[in-house]
């Protein structure tokens, strides 16, 4: 097993009882990167981030340095929007970064604004995270008073307000264009890309960089230690470290910062310092490698490194760093149903294939689970899936405005391919139960 000894880059203050305070943050190197950056040109700060090859940690894994460069030249103002809406099932890291190390995030926000030239930043925190909102409010108030945020930061000509904003309960608002709609005071419905790529036309149709909390939290370390030091950790296309939340049927579920690209799923799930293996005497049935939107992995994928390219090629994604482990006691139909229900509930309703399709997928799975399934239902599930995401391929094609619709197809494609007999058995049980009761019962087809 590989447990590398790279330093903790973003979770170093998680166990520090005063790490969230300004004093605690300053005592452990806080705001030194900001001071250093103010002595560099914005372009030089941007270059360090490019050298670091920092991949976005919000799900899509797009390199931050490249994204920053996509803003059209000479179009001002530019905005920064921080995505703290964490709500992909299985994901638990941004909340901790906001609660336990709020100043690290604020410093990251400042570095990004400085490098890109953003005139104002909005820190959008999920509505349900009252404690994170509180910690960030206290931290921002401290940082303003100390001269780190606001007008003429540390006496320089760099000025930026960081505005704390709360969401109000909607998974889809985590999607960047929906987040922008929400920030404009609207229903959180995604915009079509193109033309509404935020870097070109985002908040108020101005160039806008949307970055995830964890992405930005890496910036202070990168500036202090250099992009090269960051890129020396990890492998291939995935540099530095990354936080993974390992949940489900493991002995010691937890949130672990590990070296990207070197550590494997087996390490993460079985190493005693991480999740410690499958609970009790149980065995692995399946695991979700990157949040509910990701296709499932199995035993044969355990030795894949936690590296974007390798996981993409194997047919899934590292997504939001959420590893959900299911042992052999897990009912595949039930697990699949629960995830699909999530997407059906959270569909914003803007596109027909997603709104209708996810609802039908849920209804069909529900009737299979409830014992009213029909033999034709499995093909029907695939047919509906194909309408939402033609070809049911990976990476998914979409007939929808955003990837939420196709995300609902992932668990179905995974579970049905791997555990088809379980679905068939559920349907067969239903048929037999009906046949054995009484010939007077209405036919199965009249039931649902």
């Amino acid at each position, binding site marked *: 097993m590989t447990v590398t000894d790279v330093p903790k880059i973003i979770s170093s203050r998680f166990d520090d009882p005063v790490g969230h305070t300004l004093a605690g943050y300053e005592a452990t190197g806080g705001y030194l990167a900001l001071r250093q950056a103010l*002595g560099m040109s914005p372009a030089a700060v941007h270059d360090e981030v490019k050298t670091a090859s920092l991949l976005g940690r919000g799900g899509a894994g797009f390199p931050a340095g490249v994204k920053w460069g996509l803003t059209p030249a000479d179009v001002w103002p530019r905005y920064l929007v921080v995505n703290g809406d964490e709500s992909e099932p299985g994901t*638990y890291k941004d909340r901790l970064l906001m609660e336990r190390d709020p100043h690290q995030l604020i410093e990251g926000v400042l570095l990004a604004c400085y490098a890109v030239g953003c005139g104002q930043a909005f820190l959008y925190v999920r*509505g349900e995270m009252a404690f994170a909102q*509180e910690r960030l409010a206290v931290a921002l108030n401290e940082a303003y008073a100390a001269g780190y945020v606001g007008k003429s930061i540390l006496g320089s000509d760099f000025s930026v307000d960081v505005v704390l904003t709360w969401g109000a309960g909607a998974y889809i608002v985590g999607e960047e264009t929906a987040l922008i709609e929400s920030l404009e005071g609207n229903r959180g419905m995604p915009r079509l890309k193109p033309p509404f790529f935020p870097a070109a036309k985002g908040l108020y149709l101005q160039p806008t960089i949307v970055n995830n909390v964890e992405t930005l939290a890496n910036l202070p370390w990168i500036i202090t230690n250099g992009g090269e030091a960051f890129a020396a950790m990890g492998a291939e296309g995935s540099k530095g470290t990354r936080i993974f939340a390992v949940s*489900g049927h493991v002995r010691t579920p937890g949130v672990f910062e590990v070296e990207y690209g070197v550590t494997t799923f087996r390490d993460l799930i079985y190493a005693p310092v991480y999740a410690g293996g499958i609970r009790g005497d149980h065995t692995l049935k399946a695991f979700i490698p990157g949040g509910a939107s990701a296709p499932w992995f199995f035993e044969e994928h355990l030795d894949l490194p936690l590296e974007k390219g390798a996981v993409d090629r194997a047919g899934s994604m590292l997504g939001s760093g959420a590893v959900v482990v299911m042992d052999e006691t897990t009912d595949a139909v039930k697990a699949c149903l629960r995830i699909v229900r999530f997407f059906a509930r959270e569909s914003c309703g803007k596109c027909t294939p997603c709104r209708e399709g996810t609802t039908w997928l849920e209804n069909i799975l529900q009737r299979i689970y409830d014992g009213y399934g029909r033999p034709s239902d499995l093909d029907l599930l695939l047919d509906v899936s194909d309408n939402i995401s033609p070809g049911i391929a990976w990476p998914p094609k979409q007939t929808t405005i955003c990837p939420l619709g196709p995300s609902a197809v992932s668990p179905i494609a995974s579970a049905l391919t791997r555990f088809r007999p379980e679905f068939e058995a559920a349907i067969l049980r239903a048929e037999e139960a009906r046949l054995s009761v009484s010939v007077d019962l209405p036919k199965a087809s009249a039931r649902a």
Partner: protein
Amino acid sequence: MARLTPDNVTVAREIIGRYPRPKSALIQLLHLAQQQDGRVTDEAMSQIAEMVGVTSAEVLGTASFYEMFKFEPVGRYMVNICTNISCLLLGGEELLHHAEHRLGIVPGQTTADGLFTIEDVECIAACTEAPCLQVNYRYFHQITHDQFDELVDDLKAGRRDDIPPHGTLARVRQHIPADRRAGAVTPEDTDVPVWMTAPEEAQA
């Protein structure tokens, strides 16, 4: 109470002033109204509409998209139990059923004494702490059925004053002192930010 109190109007104006466009403050003001009244009233929505310069229908249009906003009275304590995948695997549904029996209500309902409302919610980002729940958006990790009963008893007996009534999220708000404020940047502010124009030497 339904319209915002004078104190809350002051808070609302401060919030609006932070955004380049008043409408961007809409969701924040809805939270403020819900903090005051435990839910969002029609009166509050029309007042918010006036404050940010849109119609009441637009306010409702936005508000109704977001699950946290309640338009009918709910319990003093909103008990949100997660049944999404990680919690499902470790007893989230059983916890929900236990809560239903204990409180005698199903998700969406409020107990007759007006104390509790239950919701069956999606992932609340505490997946490694399953099964988990929130009471008025405060976390309770790895909750057993006995612990749930204790929590209910404590809330009934008024022993949990660390949990404010439904509607209150963070108890500390952001406050930007006037002399530290950089100011909202509107889309009309098309000047290049000063620090982006300064010659390299001047920055050093």
